[in-house]
């Protein structure tokens, strides 16, 4: 950190803190690490460029999630690269440290989860990502998505049902 933490340093530190969660959300939305990271980079650059629109004291994570979601919907750039990148290959995940048979099994499970997520409609996937993956309370997720809490609840319900069926759990 710099010798004296300025307002700019504080904001950048807040964004840095949120990067891991923002990545998870973006990767869940886009279905690939490469597209997810592109979305995060675009989101961060846009957020900092439009910082005057953020209200200090409000939740930085929700603001970043909202920008990422809007950028995803607006651009749909990820749709051009629908081929899923194996996430463990891109990140050197723990699975690579396993022996061959277990690693192959783990990769299959990862692919199954990714593929199942991508079969969901966007509005179900984003609701599910916010609540089941990020652990946001229903109210907060509904506010972020701009939908009534009842709509959120039913989207999560349908997403759960589809995923459970697809993954055989």
């Amino acid at each position, binding site marked *: 950190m710099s010798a*004296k933490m*300025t307002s700019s340093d504080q904001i950048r530190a807040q964004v840095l*803190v949120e990067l891991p969660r923002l990545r*998870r959300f973006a990767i869940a939305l886009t279905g690939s690490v490469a597209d997810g990271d592109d979305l995060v980079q675009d989101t961060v650059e846009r957020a*900092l460029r439009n910082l005057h629109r953020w209200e200090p004291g409000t939740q930085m994570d929700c603001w970043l999630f909202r920008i990422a979601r809007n950028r995803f919907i607006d651009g749909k750039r990820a749709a051009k690269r629908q081929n899923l990148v194996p996430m463990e290959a891109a990140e050197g995940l723990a699975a690579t440290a396993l022996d061959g048979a277990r690693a192959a099994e783990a990769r299959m499970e990862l692919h199954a989860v990714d593929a199942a997520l991508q079969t969901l409609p966007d509005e179900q996937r984003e609701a599910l990502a916010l609540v*089941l993956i990020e652990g*946001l309370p229903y109210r907060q997720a509904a506010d972020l998505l701009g939908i009534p809490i009842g709509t959120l609840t039913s989207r999560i319900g349908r997403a759960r049902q589809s995923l459970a069926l697809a993954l055989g759990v």
Partner: protein
Amino acid sequence: MHLDKDILNRFIDGELAPAEMVQVAQQLASEPGWSAYLRSQEKLKTVLAERFRQVETTVPQRLIDAAKKAPLSPWWTAQMRLREILAMRWLIPAGSLLAASLFVLWFAAPSGLLMEDASGHMIAGARLAETLNTQLASAGNPSATTQIGISFRDRTGHDCRTFVSGSNAGLACHQDDAWQIQVLASTAREDPGAAYQMAGAAMPPAVRDRVQAIIAGSPFDAAAERAARDRHWSGQ
């Protein structure tokens, strides 16, 4: 209460009121027909958590660079400069020069509040980590530069603590022998002169909301806080 999948989903996600949670738990004990659905949904949560836990491992350098170096809104930057000038104007008449000096000294320390770990995650720096490791909110220490708020266990079994330091408030959870910063927010908003007086006061909404999102049960009382410290915040 009539049980259906919506109610059970809200039960699984901890979204029912406490009394309803108890009621549903009691009903489930006498209505075993729902146990397969519950098992299936718990398994689904586990599968998703495991899959995305792995995503978190390393933040690419290009994203860290974007957060550190991407241009800031010129309008916001101008606002902040003005606010900092006004803050200095108000701090001195308010007799807070000492507080301001402490603030500067605190962040002038080589590894005071925050640092990055090898994966690009923000963790507590040496001095903040020392405070989080040792200081008990229940013991009270109003003169300390950093104040501890509440301590609790999160839903993944890690011990977490809120803190206020200078004009920053945050939440850190103890994981992999480090205090991982979960959220960081500014406490100095409309009244910069009040930046130093908020020790122990209400946390910014950003911190409060994150606590509510991840807390399992209630915050530690004095005995639980002391016990957690004695176990070196090892969680469950």
